[in-house]
């Protein structure tokens, strides 16, 4: 097993390569393009035996991916941000097809205004689709979770598409040391793909159709997709355990960093959570009883695990790298739903919005968040949701607005 410096995009490509995917429908978008470029180069150099086809849009790409998956081949695809949104009609549609394949999304904030840097509003737009979601915080995790995602998607108790999410720039273009698993050991983990009753053979053509249905049969199929997604929690545990046995790296549905004995807990998703770990280390060094919980699995949402892990905590800070306009942080809402009315729920569940469009969250800000929730616990009063923004940032935006002559009436 070699350990090399690899970007998150490179790690995603290695995941697809080691999973021995057959078909890769592709469409470029920053900051994802490096994934399909890497795969295309490997195929070109005959280091990988797969068919890569560039489609004319992400909408077609997702259609092709899922259509191929339901003919019984192993499929990989990747997109980001506006691309995922452009495909959104087919994201919901193909989850309904119960097409098992893996889609990597490289998170990037949504327009308007335009940014290339990450937040999670893109992938959260697919939250209710039926695609399962695994969120990564390191490049190693991107590679490993791509492999895990195939086992999860193809399991007969699940059979749903899976999104593996990584943050643009902070992972996509960032190199870190990554173990590349050996091909033979990956084979122990991912067996030959058994598509069961999904098949298509050119020599035996057949037609397949989806009917237009009324509410009652419609509900049956929607509920079935939901039940399959719920099954995925237990299946994820099994698959991750198998992975750990073979590769000695542990992946739990919720990453738990010193949260067991902590009075205070940060909760956040994605690569910025490693920054929270750094803050936890520094706070613990100063005597704080604090930890981090990071949902790796966002769909299905591990509600019961959160109830157990957060039982009787003094205060929790949910740091959302997303914003639902007119409501606030999505993860905060989900945790409220998981915890409300539960006997041991923490009294304080405070909401912080930060990291939109790649806006940094400094370690000082994590310290300040910790102090805010500690004070809230002492006063037994939940603070108002905080949109993280500093005086200096406002000064900068005012300067830009002045330069751009914003707010003045146009001269006729």
């Amino acid at each position, binding site marked *: 097993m070699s350990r090399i*410096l690899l970007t998150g995009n490179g790690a995603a490509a290695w995941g697809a390569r080691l999973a021995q995917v057959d078909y890769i429908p592709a469409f470029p978008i920053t900051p994802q393009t490096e994934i399909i470029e890497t795969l295309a180069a490997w195929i070109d150099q005959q280091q990988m035996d797969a068919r890569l086809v560039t489609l004319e849009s992400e909408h077609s790409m997702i259609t092709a991916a899922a259509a191929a998956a339901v003919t019984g081949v192993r499929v990989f695809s990747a997109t980001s941000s506006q691309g995922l949104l452009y495909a959104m009609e087919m994201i919901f549609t193909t989850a309904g097809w119960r097409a098992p394949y893996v889609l990597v999304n490289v998170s990037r904030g949504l327009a308007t205004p335009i940014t290339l840097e990450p937040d999670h509003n893109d992938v959260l737009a697919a939250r209710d689709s039926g695609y399962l979601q695994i969120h990564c915080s390191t490049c190693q995790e991107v590679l490993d979770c791509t492999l895990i995602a195939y086992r999860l998607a193809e399991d007969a108790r699940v059979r749903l598409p899976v999104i593996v999410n990584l943050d643009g720039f902070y992972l996509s273009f960032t190199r870190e040391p990554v173990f590349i698993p050996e091909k033979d050991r990956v084979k122990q983990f991912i067996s030959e793909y058994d598509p069961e009753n999904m098949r298509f053979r050119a020599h035996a053509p057949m037609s397949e159709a989806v009917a237009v249905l009324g509410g009652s049969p419609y509900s049956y199929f929607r509920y079935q997709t939901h039940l399959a997604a719920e099954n995925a929690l237990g299946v994820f545990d099994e698959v991750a355990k198998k992975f750990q046995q073979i590769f000695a790296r542990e992946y739990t549905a919720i990453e738990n960093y010193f949260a067991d004995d902590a009075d205070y807990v940060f909760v956040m998703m994605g690569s910025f959570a490693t920054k929270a770990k750094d803050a936890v280390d520094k706070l613990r060094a100063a005597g704080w009883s604090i930890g981090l919980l990071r949902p790796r699995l966002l769909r299905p949402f591990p509600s019961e695990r959160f109830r157990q892990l957060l039982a009787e905590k003094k205060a929790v800070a949910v740091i959302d790298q997303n914003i639902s306009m007119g409501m606030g942080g999505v993860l905060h809402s989900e945790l409220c739903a998981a915890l409300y009315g539960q006997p041991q729920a923490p009294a304080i569940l405070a909401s912080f919005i930060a990291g939109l469009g790649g806006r940094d969250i400094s370690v000082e800000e994590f310290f300040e968040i910790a102090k805010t929730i500690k004070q809230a616990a002492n006063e037994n009063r939940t603070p108002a949701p905080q949109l993280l923004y500093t005086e200096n940032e406002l000064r900068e935006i005012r300067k830009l607005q002045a330069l751009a002559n*914003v707010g003045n009436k146009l001269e006729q």
Partner: protein
Amino acid sequence: MYRIRFHGRGGQGIKTASRILGTAFFLEGYEVQDAPRYGAERRGAPIFAYVRAAKKPILERGVIQQPDLVIIADESLASVASAGTLIGIDSHCVLLIVSNESAQTWQHRLNLGCKVITLSKQAENHAGVLCAGAAVRLAGVISRQNLQSAIQQELADFDASVVQINTDLALQAFDDMEEFEGSVKTAEELSVENYQKPQWIKLAFDAAHTAAPAIHAAANSVQIKTGLWRSYRPVIDYQLCKHCWWVCSTYCPGGAINVDAKGQPDVDYDHCKGCMICVAQCPSHAISIVPEQENKTAGETP
């Protein structure tokens, strides 16, 4: 932890420089994180890249705010606010500038209270690799051999001759920095007892005529000196020019070749981006390609 930031322009090899340094640290047994940062990718646009290296796993992410070493491969960026070259430079930081002016001049100009080192411009198109070689020596914990191996790894897809040129330049820069070996010192880590409180504000509502991200302005392309993007310039030899008055100016996609009443073409170097379409199109082969550094005249936009 070492925190090192490279600044330069697209095309100078800044991302490659950060990767060479990252790989060199990795070969030396360090945990490493390296990453480039840019907006819309284009040649000549300010870009930066950063490297973290430590003896334990790195949890910190994103742009380095408190650098130990800042390297500016293109001196014209020092005065470009949006390039952010000077962010977080304090007295412990070392600043390396590729420039033919003296360190004292830059010290005086920037008044940052940090150590300033200059690296003379030798090969305009290899600024990145020079900076990588210099950075390795300034850090002082990586062997010359591992610098060489890192270049070989990072440039593995190139011809042997390209690898050789880059290796020679990097090693030259490494050797030139001998007197400054190990001058980069890692900063004391932030602690909960000693940090500057973030000045959070409660953001107030602004009406949409201010808060909508729309910019209305008079046409301003003349004010933007796109000539800065160039690393080579087209130069017209008026002895060979037939004064045909239209070929070069018509093909110029930037409208940067003006023709006077006598049919004499004149390149507007403030706006010529150096695409060289005029060179390709000129039927009398009167336009040649000249490296930018060899052709700067006094008082011209650098």
